[in-house]
């Protein structure tokens, strides 16, 4: 842990624009998008954070500024320290952008493709920014806050099969769900999904609705 704290001290003294980020496990920093590459490069080369273990993103919901944050998880295979680096995306909601870190860690390739697929974040300089989980041509980015869990109706990936089977990508029937706990400060038993009235479904309407 002290190696991560040393790294934080080092990086903050080298890059004054870097600030601490609230974290409940290992140390974390916020980095302005413009300095992302030099900060990560410095952590890799000067502080031996040689392993990029994850790249992911946060959608702070519509109207938030910045709307999207990209998060990098670094690990050092020599000091066994971990550190988290977060940077806001530039650009508008439709096309948020951050620089790609594939030149620093080739392993970032598929992580960035996943973040692109799920959030629609463009990683500038990525060698092959295609969808990785959903199929090419899928029109949405499913982990964005405005995207419903059930999905949005669209066409099957293969038009010949779609024509033959008359099948479509449909919004999934939720049958009284989604089965998630209620938010907020409350008795855990009352927050349980089963505490809600889930007797209604697509076929029997919600009572009183």
């Amino acid at each position: 842990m002290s190696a991560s704290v040393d790294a934080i001290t080092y990086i903050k003294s080298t890059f004054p624009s870097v600030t601490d980020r609230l974290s409940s496990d290992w140390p974390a920093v916020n980095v302005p998008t413009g300095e992302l590459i030099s900060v990560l490069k410095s952590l890799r080369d000067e502080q031996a954070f040689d392993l990029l273990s994850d790249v992911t993103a946060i959608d702070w919901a519509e109207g938030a500024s910045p709307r999207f944050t990209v998060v990098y998880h670094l690990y050092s295979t020599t000091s066994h320290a971990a550190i988290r680096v977060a940077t806001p995306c530039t650009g508008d909601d439709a096309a948020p952008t951050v620089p790609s870190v594939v030149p620093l860690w080739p392993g970032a390739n598929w992580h960035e493709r996943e973040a692109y697929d799920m959030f629609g974040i463009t990683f500038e300089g990525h060698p092959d920014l295609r969808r990785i989980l959903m199929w090419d041509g899928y029109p949405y980015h499913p982990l964005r806050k405005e995207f419903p869990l059930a999905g949005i109706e669209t066409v099957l990936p293969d038009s010949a099969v779609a024509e033959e089977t008359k099948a479509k990508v449909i919004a999934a029937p939720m049958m009284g769900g989604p089965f998630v706990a209620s938010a907020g400060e409350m008795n855990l038993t009352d927050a349980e999904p089963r505490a809600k009235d889930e007797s209604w479904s697509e076929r029997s309407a919600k009572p009183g609705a």
Partner: protein
Amino acid sequence: MVTSNSELAYNGKIEGEVIVSRADAVINWIRTNSVWPMPMGLACCAIELMAVGNGRFDIARFGAEVMRFSPRQADCMIVAGTVTYKMAPVVRRIYDQMTSPKWVIAMGACASSGGMYRSYATLQGVDRIIPVDVYVSGCPPRPEALLDALIKLQAKIKAERSASELFTAST
């Protein structure tokens, strides 16, 4: 009266090497006892499908042990697992490549209805793209449940009018 000496079965000496039966009965008897499954293992259910082939459960007792990974040699597609929309056209293609007669077992909640995956990525039941003969409930179903499905499928095959399908011109 039935004694231990009574000959109940076909006797070649008396019948003269000739058996009289119905074409349907013979064809279905053959089909029933050599169902060659195509293991469409797409998720966790495939593990139970593998267990069915092991000695403990032994699908060979019902003549369906010849798992074929080529659809052209298979009679029965066992869809074992979650069918995503991305995979759905592939499943359909493989089904189309199987030669008739062919059957489909939807194994588990996912293949039957989408299961717990009420989500944007999951096909809500494989019957939306291919015709299903037997559905197996469970998440995952016990291997015995799949054997039960196979036995049900065999009963279904036995009741088919195979001969008329074979000997009347089809389009």
